[in-house]
């Protein structure tokens, strides 16, 4: 590992910065998609529920890599304009992981006891006020742990962009491997880098969770392992289907 020159380290670190940016932008887009689609899926009009539900099922059934390649290679050919690879990646990751996130939002909103909404009605709140002041503040702490899992999935998903030639960690590692002709050191190093990023993300989300729970007068949970969060379902489809049973259609 010591035979990396300073230039190769710099290449990798620049890759880390690209990966971090990709994660942040995709997470922002994904969060917006998750809340819009997730809330639409609890709407009282069936047509809104149907359209948002279709969005969820389609993106959940799609492979992110296939979609990314389609957006990157095929959309420019047919529409005639080229998307910057970075933004093609953000668009794909945001829409895909946003779809998974919508299930978290929907499940958490559906899990707020109906009695809370009734109390809101009894006090004369409008539906928008009930959502903003009563339902979302209570649903939010429930969303944080699964969002943490999803964020780590997203972080791992950003490695796919190396296929498009975006210079993230994984892409930089390929360059380093070509330069040194040695695979073991560089791939070990970047695996550790990803792990550290995931660890930091989890720390941040723990903090968010603690604050969210304090905001509803509950104490924060204690995590068991270094990185694992407490709660059900570590991954996208598990997240999706464990909460699907509790929801109303």
């Amino acid at each position, binding site marked *: 590992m010591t035979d990396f020159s300073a230039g190769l380290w710099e290449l990798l670190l620049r890759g880390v910065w690209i990966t971090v940016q990709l994660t942040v932008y995709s997470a922002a887009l994904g969060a917006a998609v998750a809340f819009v689609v997730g809330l639409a899926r609890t709407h009282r009009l069936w047509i809104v529920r149907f359209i948002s539900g279709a969005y969820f099922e389609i993106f959940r059934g799609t492979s992110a890599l296939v979609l990314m390649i389609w957006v990157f290679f095929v959309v420019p050919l047919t529409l005639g304009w080229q998307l910057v690879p970075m933004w093609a990646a953000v668009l794909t990751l945001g829409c895909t992981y946003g779809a998974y996130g919508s299930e978290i939002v929907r499940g958490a909103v559906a899990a707020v006891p109906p009695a809370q909404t009734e109390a809101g009605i009894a*006090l004369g709140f409008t539906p928008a*006020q009930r959502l903003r002041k009563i339902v979302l503040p209570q649903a939010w702490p429930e969303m944080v742990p699964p969002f943490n899992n999803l964020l780590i999935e997203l972080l791992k998903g950003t490695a796919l962009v190396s296929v498009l030639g975006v210079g993230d960690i994984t892409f930089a590692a390929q360059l380093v491997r070509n330069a040194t002709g040695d695979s073991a050191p560089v791939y070990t190093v970047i695996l550790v880098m990803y792990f550290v990023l995931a660890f930091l993300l989890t720390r941040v989300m723990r903090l968010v969770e603690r604050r969210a729970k304090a905001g509803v*007068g509950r104490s924060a949970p204690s995590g068991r392992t270094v990185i694992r969060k407490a709660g059900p379902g570590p991954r996208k489809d598990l997240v999706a289907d464990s909460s699907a049973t509790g929801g109303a259609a």
Partner: protein
Amino acid sequence: MSAETEPTPQIPRDTGTTREVIRLDQVTKRFGDNTVLDQLNFTVDAGKHVTLIGPSGSGKTTILRLLMTLVQPDEGIITVDGEQLYPAPEKQVREVRKKIGMVFQQFNLFPNMKVLRNVTEAPVTVLGMSKDEAEARARELLELVGLADKCDAYPTHLSGGQQQRVAIARALAMRPQVLLLDEVTSALDPELVAGVLDVLRDIAHSTDITMLCVTHEMSFARDISDQVLMFDSGRVIESGSPEKLFGDPDHERTREFLSTIL
């Protein structure tokens, strides 16, 4: 007990002419095949305290939920203070609904807000009251229910009885003309019931608020009620003063029911 009929007992605070504040006309409510309310008619005059009793599933709670617009009737007309609540356009429903407050069996405090904000939130956002005014009034009401020192606690840190008293203060903060009480003590541990009932007695005797109350606490009902309605299978089978209904009911079903709970 006195056997004379007295449909309108004399109440000192009942000043001026009587005025209908709640009116149900031919209201029917079904859940699936089950008819919970069957072409029900009844009225409540302003300032009166009416208690609904009857076996579970007889439709008492459904009436409160209909008045709070938590469920919609299948047929019939509901009028509150001269204005139609059902059927009515959404905007009118929202206006009329402000005249009604409700206290729930499970309290339903908002766990994401501290006690004080539970009480001030609706006056500020719904009635447009200033924050200072709402807070001053909330503190008064919390004083009234004996919880002035709990303003900054979260609901989850209170006992059931304390939560229910906050819920009462929260409902009163909206200055409703009508207060609906839905089995407000049945989720409480026995030793906490008295505190809540004392608060309600106090409110019943010191204000002119109209109360519609579903309860199994017969001594409380006897204390505060002007009128008691006995429900069975979605109909009112008997109504009268608490003395008459508890002491010398006419109806066999009423007698059976009372013997099971007294």
